[in-house]
């Protein structure tokens, strides 16, 4: 008798593994279908008997289930294999089914940024699965993303809509009314426009034309100082965000490039291989912008020393090269066909790639030698 369906018909087809727990084929099939389809199990499906820890092997499974389910089983089996192995990770790109192998250890992640490239072309960090964030190490990236999620909008708003009281530094929002401000906290009276003492304003109640008075300039200097940290963050954030946006536009650019390449082939009689330089240029722009974006998060946390200057020079060189290439790249078709421009673009492309590698090599070396950050 089958202990699952309690059926004891004659000629009931049954199945058992080496453990000897025998059930009818129909029940076994139901059981396996449930485990594979509903519970997503594969490598850990046990014999249906209570307390029996025998795992269903692939050969028994193939005997019992439909080829379709058997395919799903293999898929799940591969998935657990990759998930259980530290040196393998799934490529996070949408619809990509590849796994990537990398031997990086968790404790090395503060010294190395393990970017890997999948065969599908997607580049990501093996440490944290985010898209390529060289030169910034994972921990720094995590902090930066959190800071941006928490602070960016608030900081922007504070910067745009408030000023600090020249006397006690409380942050004040002017939400209407005249320029005569009285700080709620310390009762200091000042002019919103020039930040100078209100008592010096005399009768110009609603208009301030006293921008160059001494009390005003001093107050503005003090204010500027108190804003340095906020402005510093926004400086890096805006550049980071700018490159991020450009990277997004690169996606559109890529499709445009493809169209341009086709147009160019028909307009100038160039062959497919002769227009590939546009593709290379587009790729270079994307990768370089991605790197540039993260150099700004990296720079935000970087402790200032002699190495910083070299880093900033490298960053500046790469940025300049990228913007140059970007400008050339957006020229109309007629000009793109010009052979001189083509050579220029090819030169700039390889220059950008070279600058990027120099920057990354430099930061990778410094990271490995224990670079210091202000976290």
């Amino acid at each position: 008798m089958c202990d699952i369906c309690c059926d004891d018909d004659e000629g009931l087809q049954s199945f058992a593994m080496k453990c000897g727990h025998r059930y009818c084929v129909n029940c076994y099939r139901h059981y396996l279908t449930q485990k594979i389809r509903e519970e997503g199990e594969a490598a850990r499906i046990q014999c249906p008997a209570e307390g029996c820890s025998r795992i269903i092997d692939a050969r028994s499974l193939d005997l019992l289930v439909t080829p379709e389910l058997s395919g799903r089983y293999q898929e799940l089996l591969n998935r657990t294999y990759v998930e259980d192995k530290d040196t393998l990770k799934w490529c996070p790109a949408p619809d990509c089914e590849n796994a990537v192998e990398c031997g990086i250890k968790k404790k090395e992640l503060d010294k190395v940024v393990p970017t890997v490239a999948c065969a599908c072309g997607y580049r990501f960090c093996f440490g944290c699965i985010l898209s390529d964030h060289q030169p910034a190490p994972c921990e720094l990236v995590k902090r930066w993303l959190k800071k941006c999620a928490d602070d960016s909008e608030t900081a922007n708003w504070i910067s745009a809509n408030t000023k600090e009281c020249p006397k006690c530094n409380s942050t004040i929002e002017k939400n209407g009314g005249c320029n005569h401000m009285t700080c709620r906290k310390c009762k200091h009276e000042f002019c919103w426009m020039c930040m100078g003492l209100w008592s010096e304003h005399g009768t110009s109640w609603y208009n301030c034309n006293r921008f160059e008075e001494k009390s005003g300039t001093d107050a503005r200097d003090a204010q500027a100082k108190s804003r340095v940290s906020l402005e510093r963050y926004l400086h890096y954030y805006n550049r980071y965000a700018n490159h991020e946006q450009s990277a997004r536009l690169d996606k559109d650019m890529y499709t445009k490039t493809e169209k341009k390449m086709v147009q160019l082939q028909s307009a100038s009689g160039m062959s497919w291989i002769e227009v590939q330089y546009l593709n290379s240029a587009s790729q270079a722009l994307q990768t370089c912008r991605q790197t540039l974006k993260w150099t700004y998060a990296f720079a935000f946390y970087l402790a200032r020393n002699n190495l910083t200057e070299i880093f900033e020079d490298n960053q500046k060189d790469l940025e300049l090269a990228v913007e140059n290439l970007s400008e050339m790249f957006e020229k109309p078709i007629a000009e793109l066909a010009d052979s001189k421009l083509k050579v220029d673009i090819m030169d700039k492309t390889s220059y950008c790639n070279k600058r990027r590698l120099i920057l990354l090599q430099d930061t990778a070396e410094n990271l490995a030698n224990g670079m210091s950050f202000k976290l």
Partner: protein
Amino acid sequence: MSSLGTKRLGKELANEQVSKSLPPGITLVKADDLQEWLLDIQVLDQNPIYAGETYRLKFRFGKQYPIEPPEVVFTKQENRPIPMHPHIYSNGIICLDLLGSSGWSPVQNVESVCMSIQSMLTGNTKNHRPEGDADFVSTNKARPKDIEFYYHDNEV
């Protein structure tokens, strides 16, 4: 319900009604359909926590029974309280690995589940609810089988 479930529950029912084979302390109260059954259980030895009480269990069978576990809870009625146990919440939900998909085996049946619950009560000496009972009871909306139980105390 799948034909497998119908056939199986029919057999279980016939077995219990015809031969009255249920072990002492376990009685079938209602089994009108193949979706929901009610059973009463008692603890037969002299465990002071449960002496003289009868408890009501409600079984609900899903489409996949017996491949999937049934949903089993205590229900409160007059003369039918919820038993005190560090793995039984005051709303009747039972935290028992046997009733989750990883601890369930299709070889289990209504009778064996009742016996497991009975022995879980018999062996218990702690007269209290699980940790965080009040919170769980007031916030939980998930079906028992979808709850990821955290076993605070594995010695019970």
